[in-house]
């Protein structure tokens, strides 16, 4: 009796050990596959081309050398473009929120009027998200001319893709109980949205908006490169005449502003919690 018990215990341990070994083999396979994919990607992009990298290194070093010391002699000329850039990011984010809000209710499972509209709204959000803002910038520069306006339109429209999606997800995760209560009190569809759903999703929506503003500020610094106004335009001009000391000065100004905007954004989002 006791020996049969021993055997059964032995057999159980054996099973456990085999299962454990199988688990180890599986994770080994997964790690191996990931490493292989990473290596193939590096090979494809030339990151493993030691000779070419070796030749490039001195050039990079030289470029870096030409950047210092930063030349702040024209710093007064950066103030206005930097203000433009901040304005672009704020106006663009506002535009994004204005379009995202109605789209999100159409693209959320629980508030969409019907499946066709749901898929149309989701599709539109995907399209807007997948066209890069730089491409949109080029298109809008062609449409409305140089300046900050095409930048705002490009940032705003591209942002709708992400902001609208996140808004829709927030709406889908809303607590349905207060909605039922509002309906039971005779509220109309619009009243349910405004008085039962919006109060619940306000924190998430504000969080996404502030986060997107931070992102849009960083994105708007390059909008100038396609002629869509802001500090990026100055950056491009200095790059064209290969004045790398000025380029470095502008980059430092941008870095300071990005740090400031991100810090402000973090404070704002902390307040919303």
């Amino acid at each position, binding site marked *: 009796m006791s020996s049969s018990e021993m055997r059964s215990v032995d057999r159980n341990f054996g099973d456990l050990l085999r299962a454990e070994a199988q688990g180890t083999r599986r994770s080994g396979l997964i790690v191996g596959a990931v490493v292989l994919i990473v290596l193939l990607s590096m090979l494809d992009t030339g990151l493993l081309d030691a000779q070419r990298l070796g030749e490039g290194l001195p050039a990079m070093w030289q470029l870096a050398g030409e950047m210092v010391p930063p030349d702040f002699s024209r710093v007064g000329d950066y103030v206005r473009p930097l203000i433009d850039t901040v304005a672009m990011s704020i106006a663009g984010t506002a535009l994004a929120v204005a379009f995202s809000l109605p789209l999100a209710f159409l693209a959320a499972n629980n508030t969409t009027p019907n499946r066709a509209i749901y898929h149309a709204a989701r599709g539109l959000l995907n399209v807007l998200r997948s066209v890069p803002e730089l491409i949109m910038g080029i298109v809008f520069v062609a449409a409305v001319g140089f300046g900050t306006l095409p930048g705002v339109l490009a940032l705003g429209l591209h942002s709708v893709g992400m902001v609208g999606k996140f808004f829709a997800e927030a709406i889908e995760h809303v*607590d349905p*109980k*207060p909605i*039922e*209560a*509002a*309906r*039971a*009190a*005779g*509220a*109309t*569809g*619009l*009243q349910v949205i*405004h*008085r*039962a759903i919006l*109060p*619940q999703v*306000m*924190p998430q929506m504000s969080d996404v908006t502030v986060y997107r503003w931070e992102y849009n500020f960083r994105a708007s610094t390059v909008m100038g490169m396609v002629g869509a106004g802001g500090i990026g335009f100055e950056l491009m001009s200095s790059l064209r005449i290969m004045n790398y000391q000025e380029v470095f000065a502008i980059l430092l100004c941008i870095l300071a502003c990005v740090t400031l905007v991100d810090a402000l954004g973090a404070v704002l989002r902390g307040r919303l919690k």
Partner: protein
Amino acid sequence: MLQLEGVSVTYPNGVRALSRTDLGFAASQFVVLLGPSGAGKSTLLRCLNGLVPPSEGRVCADDLGDIHGPRALRTHRRRTAMVFQHHQLIGRLSALGNTLTGRLGYHPSWRTLFPLPRADRLLALECLDRVGLAERALTRCDNLSGGQQQRVGIARALAQQPALILADEPVASLDPATARHVLGLLHEICKADGIPAIVSLHQVNYAREFADRIVGVADGGIVFDGPTAELGEEHLAQIYGSPAAMARGARPASEGRAKVSAGPPSEVALSETPMSKTA
């Protein structure tokens, strides 16, 4: 006042929650729908304000006829307030903000995009005062206790100035002492204002204490309908299935039941009834 005519409800997933039911409610009564969880009480209540549309039959209000279509539904829901088991409040909003939800049915959609009129705010504050929460009017609801939250739920219902109150297990999520207090408050307000109420409960003792009329619900059907005094052992057995299950559901009401059955008043003796019957 309100009539169910041959109403049945089958949910999209095939569950038949309510089988063909005819039921009428008269004005100024405090009616308790009594039955175990899953008996169909919630479905029955939600038919009464159209939150659950009947699969067959119709729900008729005195002056509106069949409550069907957005217009009739809105009119009916505005004057038919509902109190929910889980309060159904918005935690981030103040007690006052939640109470004002009861006023939405009185305004067109565009009007409620702006702050509600002062008269509505005053009314909402009065309603909060009636449930003893005027002091907490500006407190966020997620900072209130369970009992306080349900009192805000009652205030929201009162803010509708309702002609009828529906309450779906209003005290099931509360501890016994708080439950007794909150249900007492609801009963007192309904009696004082002459508002009829239809309240679903699973506790026999509360039903006996507060109801004018009891409707027993079991397995999606009505198994008892009559004045509270007529509810006897055999009806409870029907509502709760087996007498043992009934004894479990009805334990706190042992005194009331002892009078009806005129048997030994101890709980042990009562729960042994089936054995003595078979013996």
